[in-house]
């Protein structure tokens, strides 16, 4: 909008809004800085033992030393496993949700199994998974799948089944087949649900991958955390945790970006 057309009240309102946004961001940054500063100060003063608690400066040193301690390899391993686990989990989850939407019978039959599987702590399956698929990357990906797939199925099936019945009835008045109803009504209607599920899923995949790496791995951030803990290199552990936090945020952003792209495309061309 052109600036000249804005009334002075409007301009004041917009300015106020902008100021508020900036204040929120500023406060958030301040909290982090305060936290890091306090941590560093207490470590320098010897109030807390930086051997056990590490310190921002030591973490910084570890991060900068990425060429020697193989951080990049560990990061790329974890990212690769997470992306594969996420993609497979989403694919399998969506397919199963479609099958259960298609056949109410199958959905009813599998309901109690899904509920039990959903609340079962998947870590308990760790040994079984290692024995079945071997102590390698496969086991880690299967762990990620075990943790994320069921939730994806439940979430998406819930969305599919909650599709406005009147819309489906409308499609049927034109003689729509079940396939057409799904593609033209159910899927676009649930695009938000789908992406909400993806947002949950990317997080869960990361949880699954780290859990898997705890159990069995030669590389990855999960491996680094376990290794660092065993040899009392807390700098390594803390650095890994921080990288993980950043990674989680970035992956989430990636899904958001994808959502924006897809939603825009859908509204313009479908």
């Amino acid at each position, binding site marked *: 909008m052109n600036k000249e057309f804005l009334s002075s009240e409007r301009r004041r309102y917009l300015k106020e809004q902008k100021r508020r946004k900036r204040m929120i961001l500023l406060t958030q940054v301040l909290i982090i800085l305060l936290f890091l500063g306090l941590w560093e100060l207490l470590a320098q003063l010897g109030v807390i033992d930086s051997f056990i608690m590490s310190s921002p400066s030591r973490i910084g040193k570890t991060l900068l030393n990425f060429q020697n301690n193989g951080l990049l390899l560990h990061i790329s391993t974890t990212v690769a496993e997470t992306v594969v686990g996420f993609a497979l989990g989403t694919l399998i989850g969506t397919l199963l949700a479609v099958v259960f939407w298609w056949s109410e019978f199958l959905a009813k039959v599998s309901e109690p199994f899904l509920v039990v599987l959903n609340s079962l702590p998947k870590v308990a399956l760790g040994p079984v998974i290692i024995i079945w698929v071997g102590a390698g990357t496969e086991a880690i990906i299967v762990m990620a799948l075990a943790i994320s797939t069921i939730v994806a199925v439940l979430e998406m099936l819930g969305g599919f089944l909650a599709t406005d019945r009147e*819309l489906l*009835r409308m*499609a*049927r*008045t*034109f*003689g729509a087949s079940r396939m057409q109803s799904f593609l033209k009504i159910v899927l676009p*209607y649930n*695009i938000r649900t789908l992406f909400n599920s993806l947002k949950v899923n990317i997080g869960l995949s990361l949880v699954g991958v780290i859990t898997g790496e705890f159990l069995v791995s030669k590389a990855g951030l999960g491996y680094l955390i376990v290794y660092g803990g065993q040899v009392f290199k807390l700098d390594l552990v803390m650095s890994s945790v921080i990288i993980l936090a950043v990674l989680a945020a970035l992956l989430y952003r990636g899904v958001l970006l994808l959502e924006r792209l897809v939603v825009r495309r*859908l509204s313009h061309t479908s």
Partner: protein
Amino acid sequence: MTQGLLPLKTQKGGSALSGANKLTMSSQLLTVERLALKYQSGNGETEALKNISFSVSEGEYISIVGPSGCGKSTLLSIIAGLLEPTAGRVLLDGLPVDPASGGIGYMLQRDNLLEWRSIYKNVLLGLEIQGKLTEESREYAITLLKNYGLYEFRDKYPAQLSGGMRQRAALIRTLATRPRLLLLDEAFSALDYQTRLSVTDDVYRILRKENKTTLMVTHDIPESISMSDRVLILSRRPAVIQSVCETTFSDDRTPLRCRGDSRFSTYFNFIWKELDVHE
């Protein structure tokens, strides 16, 4: 048609072919024969419809009124082929109905426009589903949009349109598939009263212009009289055709003009009495 001023009344539960009898069989577009429906549910069996027979000839506008919950909408669903009757049959041009054939256009109470599609894409939905999307059918849809004042809004989304315009878009979506028979299921009841009056006038004009045979279910007696040539009055459940009211107005009738006609209250009183709400 040359009916007298007074509406015809048929016997209880009898067939309601009175208006149609005068026409030759070949002009019957829709024939409904001894339709019956029993619902099965966990709580037991409900007899919704019992022995419903009537027919509709080409170009007629027929309304069905009845007490609420008597199965009016169920009747339409059966005629549209969405619901299997327990007994009886429905013939369109002498053939059993099939929703996929596109012979029947069915408009529901809500417009059910898809919020993620533009108006133009919404209007094409029926054609898409029936696999009739051709250069020619697109042209026809565009012509309808132009004729009924939605062409400028073709790239807008449903949320940007008023209730009346949305309903018109839904009607065009149905008309674009060129159905032989149009079914309207309380198609205006989601609108506020004033919009409703203007939309019914609009729709009536459109349907007459497109020369559509229409079967409309409504709970609004004035609406049924003002729009249709014949009003079928259903009884309470299990529904039978209680009686039929033939309406005669001047040739240049519109719903609004009918409401001002002196015959209007005669028809209204008749239907009101037949509905027997206080029984």
